[in-house]
């Protein structure tokens, strides 16, 4: 068994204790995945990525700095599908080679743009950052990172590129 802390919609906070030395968090009697540990991930691109002109292109951030609940797909779809429902702080920073125009970076939720931000041109490169607080249902909702602008190349490495999210409040 386990020592249980259960948030119940009928009885409020219910605590059950035993001598197992195991602690479990529950919502309405259902154990939270991963012992209630909040999912969090951060990923970056290990190589460069070419971007077509004026085309929203999904960013291939294929290397994980961490992925506490194995909810980020870094091989095929490059998407974060958390298995715990709640509100997630999502962050995106993108670094590209020089372009003369301002471009967009965007976080997509379930295949549609949820929020976009500007990436400003600098003398030798471009960089842009954005964040959003997004509700995820813990089963089918997912987020992805996209880039839009003139034809360019996404630089590699974690120093200028990161896509990350973490649970800040349960549903």
């Amino acid at each position, binding site marked *: 068994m386990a020592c249980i802390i259960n948030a119940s919609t009928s009885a409020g906070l219910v605590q059950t204790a035993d001598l197992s030395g195991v602690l479990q968090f529950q919502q309405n009697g259902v154990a939270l995945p991963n012992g209630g540990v909040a999912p969090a991930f951060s990923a970056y691109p290990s190589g460069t*990525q070419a971007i*077509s*002109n*004026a*085309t*929203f*292109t*999904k*960013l*291939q951030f294929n290397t994980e700095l961490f992925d506490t609940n194995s909810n980020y797909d870094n091989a095929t*779809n*490059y998407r974060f599908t958390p298995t715990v429902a709640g509100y997630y702080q999502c962050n995106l920073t993108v670094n590209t080679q020089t372009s003369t125009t301002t471009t*967009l970076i965007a976080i997509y939720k379930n295949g549609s743009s949820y929020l976009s931000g500007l990436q400003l041109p600098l003398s030798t490169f471009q960089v842009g950052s954005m964040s959003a607080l997004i509700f995820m249902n813990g089963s089918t909702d997912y987020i992805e990172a*996209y880039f*839009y602008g003139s*034809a360019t190349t996404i630089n590699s490495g974690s120093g200028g590129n990161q896509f990350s999210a973490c649970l800040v409040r349960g549903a």
Partner: protein
Amino acid sequence: MLYEKIIALYPSLTSQDFMTVIQLQNDSDGKGDYIAKWEHPTLPRPTDEELA
């Protein structure tokens, strides 16, 4: 590239058009660029033959 083919067909299109009534997308799934949205008020969506 898809954008260049569309511009060749419709030179009057602007960068604003591609951020509002037209959206090109690439989902990095190996299928390449495609038209995700075409809501231009006067110009018809290009056919596959025109974009080939």
